[in-house]
C-alpha cells in the first residue's frame, strides 16, 4: 500500500492516516467485512441446524 503522503516522515502529516485512506480500499475492506459477517451467520445457521437434526 505504501505511505500515502508525499513526505517519508510523520512531520507535517495530519488528517486521516489509516492504511488505504484516500483510495477505494476502505470501501472494499468494508464490503469484504460485511460479506464475512453474513457468511458467519450463514455458516453458523448451518452448523446450528445440523446440531438440532442430530438431536431429534
Amino acid at each position, binding site marked *: 500500500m505504501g505511505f500515502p503522503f508525499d513526505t517519508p516522515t510523520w512531520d507535517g*502529516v*495530519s*488528517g*486521516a*492516516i*489509516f492504511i488505504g*485512506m*484516500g483510495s477505494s480500499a*476502505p*470501501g472494499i475492506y*468494508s*464490503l469484504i*467485512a*460485511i460479506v464475512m*459477517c453474513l457468511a458467519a*451467520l450463514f455458516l*453458523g*445457521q448451518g452448523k*446450528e441446524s445440523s*446440531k*438440532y437434526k442430530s*438431536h*431429534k
Partner: protein
Amino acid sequence: MEEQLAELAAQVAAIEAKGNLTNTMFAETYYYLSIPLMIIIHAGFLAYEMGASRAKNALSSGVKNILAFAFVIPAFYFFGWWVYWAFPTGFSLSAGPNGISGAEYANGFALAWGEAALYMGPNTEDQIDGVFWGAFTLFAATTASIFSGAVIERIQTVGFVILAIILGGFSWTLAAAWGWHADGWLVQQWGVHDFGAAGLVHAVAGFFALGVLINLGPRIGKFNADGTANHLAGHNLPFTATGLMLIVVGFWGFLMACLVVGGEAWSWGGNFTTIYGTPTNLGALTFNILMGVAGGIIGAWLFTRDPFWMMSGALAGLISVASGLDIYFPSLVFIIAMVAGIMLKPAADVLERMGIDDAVGAVSVHGTMGIYGMLMLGIFGSGYPALLGEGAPVVSFMGQLVGIVVFVAIGFITGYVTSIILKMIGMLRVPEAAEIAGLDTVKVPAQAYPEGIMASPPASK
C-alpha cells in the same frame, strides 16, 4: 510598549490554544471512558442471563449474549450510525432546522466507504467521531442485551443475532434519531424529552422483546394446561443478582455518555449540557441516579423480599426517572422510583397471566417502566423548554405520550415483523427435543459445571 503588547497577545494565544487542546482531549477521554463502563452493562447481562437460565442452558445463554454484543458493533458501524444522522426528520431523509441531519449530511461522515470513510477511521484532526460512535454503539449493544434475557432457553442463536442486529442497528437508532437528536421531529414538534433514554432505549428494547415473545412462545413447562404458570427458576440466583448490580454500575457510563461536553465546536455551550442542549451536569446525575436506584430497590423489596426482584427494582427505579434525571429533584426521583419498584412485580405478573413467558422480566423492567418514566416526566416536567434557545418547544404530557407511543410502536412492530419472518423460515425457535435435552448439551462444546456444583470440604483442624 507595542512589542510588549504583541508578546502578551502571543502568550495569551498560546495559553488559549493549550486550554482548547486540553478541553478537546478531556472531551475525547470522557466519551472514551464511558465505553468500558458501558461494557460493564454487558458483563452484567451476561452473568444475569446465565444465572437466570437452568443449568442445562447456562452456556448457550452466554453464547447468545456474547454474539449479540459482537454483531451489533459492526452493524452499527456499517449502517446504524448513518441511520441516526440521516433519519431525524422522518423518512424524508431531509435536513432538519439545525442543519445536522439528513441523508446528505450523514453521507458526509457516517459511512465506511467513499469520502465519508475519512471520519470512520484514525484521523488526527477528528478527535470526536470515533468516541461518539463508540458510545452510541454501546447504547445499541445495550438494547440487544435488554432484549436478550427475555428469550433465553428456546431461541435459535442465529435467529436471535439477526433480531439483535435489527434492534441495535435500526429500531432503537430510529427512535434516537426522532426523539434524541436535536433535529428529531419528536423533539422539534412535540418537545419530547428523554434525557436518559427511558423510552428510546428501554421501552423500544422492551417492546421489541414483547413482539418477539409473542411469536416465540413460552418455554416448555412454563404454563399448565389450565393457563397457570410455573416458576422455572434459574440455576444461580447469586450470579444473577450480582449481574444486575453490574448492570447498575454500567449505567453510570451509559448516563455519563448522554451528556454533551462543553467548549467544543460541536458543543452547545461552555459547560455540560444534555443532548438537547439544555443545562445539566454530573452533579445532577449523581443525585438522581443514586436516589433512583435506592427507591427502586426499596419499592421492590416491600412486596417481594426477593433479591432478583430487588435488583430488578434498582433498574426499574433508574429507568423510571431516566427521562428527567437532568431536572428532577432527588426526593421526587425517590418517590417515582419507589413506586416503580412496587409496580414491577405486579406488571410482570400481568404479562404472565397473558401467557407471555418473559424469562427475566425484561418487558416489565424496560418496557413498562420506560412508558411510566416518560409519562412521569410529562406530568412533573411540563413547561420546561425541551431544547436550548428562544422559541424552543416545551415538555408536555401530550408530547411525552406521543413520544412513548412512537417508541413502543417502533420496538414492537420491528420485533414482531422480524420474528414472524424468522418463524416462517424456521429460524426462530429451537426444536422441542433440543429444548428438553438442554441447549448446552445440543450445541455448546463445553460444560458449565464439569464437576457439578459441590460444597467445599471443611478445612482440616
